[in-house]
Every structure is written in structure tokens, then in C-alpha cells.
């Protein structure tokens, strides 16, 4: 049986169709989950897509965390279900406390949309098990608030637990200031929770799934998830 993915639709989500398309392309069975739904137990994995939930007028992801579906997702996470939050989805996971840290406005105060180079720091997660250790991948970013922040203690803890999964790097895989698009601390682009079943990342893997789009590297993340839930 194919892996069952649910893509949550908040008012203002705008990457839900892209995520639906991408997950289907790599072989998952995909359905939309409405923000007022209260049960997600029938899915193997949940995708919180990018966009501007509730317009992001107060703070990115701030209002979405109070949606009924988020209670169901907390429950789902407790039971070990896989949740991936992409861009605005990552911001929602941070606001909901499912991942540590917070997002600030980009260093240059501008929205940035372009391809970035990333290094896979941890390939032992449910979301990167199809990558090589230290593999270099190319995924696009598109955000205004992707400047990751956490206090020293949290950063230390995350490092100790291998929770930093993706960092922005240059084309040679070196993590440099110049390769940091938004000012994120330690070039952090994607992190998992301590339990390893919640993943948040600013880059959009669903935008890099076909050669016609310029990169296939995003497939790795969805395939890793399928592999993890098929075990």
C-alpha cells in the first residue's frame, strides 16, 4: 500500500497544490486536510505547506497554530507520526512549539526567491535517509521571514542531538556568511525535533522535483519520508 500523505490547507496557504503534486509524483497517496478538520490519524505523514496563512499579518504562522487541525497534529506527533513544515509550515511549527526557535525578518528586509545550495548535515533522519552524508543539494527559497533564531543553549542542544539537518552553503558545500541568504544563525535552513518526527525547513523541496524546474533534489526528502513510513 502506498504511503498516505495529508496536505493541510489553511486559509492563505499557497503551496498546497504544489506539495500535493510533488508527493503524488514520488508515489504517495495524497489528500487535502482542511484547517478545521480534527482528525489526521488516517495519514502516515502530514505536510504543512508554504504560503501566507491568515495573511501572516500578525506574525508568520502565529494565527494558524490555533486552528483545530493543529490540536489533531499535536496528537499525531505524540504518537510518532511524521510532520514536515515547509516555509510557512516551518514557521507554524515554530509558533506551535513543535520545533525550537523562532523566525525573524530576513537580514536585508527583503523577500528572497532564488535557488540556494544546501548541505545535508544529518542523513540519519526520517526526512533525509535517502541522502548521502554531507550531500550537496539545490532547492529554491521564497520567503520574507526565514532568518532563524534560537538562544545559545537551544543551539547547543540541537547540535548535540544532530537536530540541524540542512544548512545554507556555497557551491562547494562550505558553510559561509556569503552563502547565508537571510541571516539565519549558523546558516540553519532546516531542523528536526528531538524525537526526529517533526521537520521544518525554509527551502521548498516541492519546487525541485523535475528537470524542467531546474532541480530534482527535492524528491529526496519526500522519498525519504515514504521510506521511513514504509518500514
Amino acid at each position, binding site marked *: 500500500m502506498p504511503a498516505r500523505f495529508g496536505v493541510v490547507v489553511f486559509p492563505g496557504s499557497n503551496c498546497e497544490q504544489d506539495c500535493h503534486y510533488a508527493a503524488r509524483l514520488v508515489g504517495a497517496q495524497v489528500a487535502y486536510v482542511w484547517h478545521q478538520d480534527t482528525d489526521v490519524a488516517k495519514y502516515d505523514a502530514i505536510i504543512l505547506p508554504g504560503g501566507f496563512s491568515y495573511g501572516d499579518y500578525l506574525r508568520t504562522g*502565529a494565527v494558524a497554530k490555533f486552528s483545530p487541525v493543529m490540536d489533531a497534529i499535536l496528537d499525531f506527533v505524540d504518537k510518532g507520526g511524521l510532520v514536515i513544515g515547509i516555509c510557512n509550515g516551518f514557521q507554524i511549527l515554530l509558533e506551535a512549539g513543535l520545533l525550537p526557535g523562532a523566525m*525573524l525578518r530576513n*537580514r536585508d528586509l527583503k523577500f528572497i526567491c532564488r535557488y540556494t545550495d544546501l548541505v545535508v548535515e544529518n542523513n540519519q533522519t526520517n526526512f533525509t535517509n535517502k541522502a548521502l552524508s554531507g550531500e550537496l543539494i539545490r532547492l529554491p527559497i521564497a520567503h520574507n521571514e526565514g532568518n532563524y*533564531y534560537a538562544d545559545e543553549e537551544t543551539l547547543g542542544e540541537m547540535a548535540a542531538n544532530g537536530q540541524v539537518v540542512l544548512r545554507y552553503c556555497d557551491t562547494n558545500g562550505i558553510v559561509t556568511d556569503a552563502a547565508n541568504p537571510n*541571516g539565519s544563525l549558523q546558516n540553519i535552513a532546516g531542523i528536526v525535533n528531538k524525537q526526529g518526527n517533526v521537520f521544518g525547513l525554509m527551502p521548498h523541496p516541492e519546487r525541485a522535483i523535475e528537470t524542467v524546474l531546474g532541480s530534482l533534489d527535492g524528491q529526496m526528502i519526500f522519498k525519504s519520508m515514504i521510506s521511513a513510513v514504509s518500514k
Partner: protein
Amino acid sequence: MPVAKVYVTLKDGILDPQGQIIGKALKTQGYDNVSRVRVGKFIELELTGETPEKLKKQVDKISHDLLSNPVIESYTFDIQEEA
């Protein structure tokens, strides 16, 4: 009708690029005595019912849970009686 005025600002130590830009602009315009600028949000809540203590508790909860992100922001508020 009581009105709560909530001020949300980035915590000390968190980089505030907007504040920096305004600070630089003021410098170039000759305001040398402005040593620091921090940008925040001001939110007004019109309220009804409830005793002053209950209102205070309620506004504190709203400010903590929704209006600010405790990881990066702090808040203050005061509640005034307005016509």
C-alpha cells in the same frame, strides 16, 4: 469602554534590522543624539464586561499566546478607560 494598549517589541539582544535602518537614516539626517531605535507593534483592544483584575489577566494571556512570540518578543500593556 476599557481599551487595552499592547506594545510588542523584539527582546533585547535580538537583531532588529528595521530599527537599524531607521537609526542610520536619522544619523544621515543629523539626529546625532538618537543612539538606538527599536521597532515594535502597537495593538489596541476594545474590551467589554469583566472586572479590572480579570481583564488584566485576559489581556496578559492574549498578549502572551497570540500577540507576541515569547521566543523573540516581549510585551507590555496598559488598560485605560475610554469613552
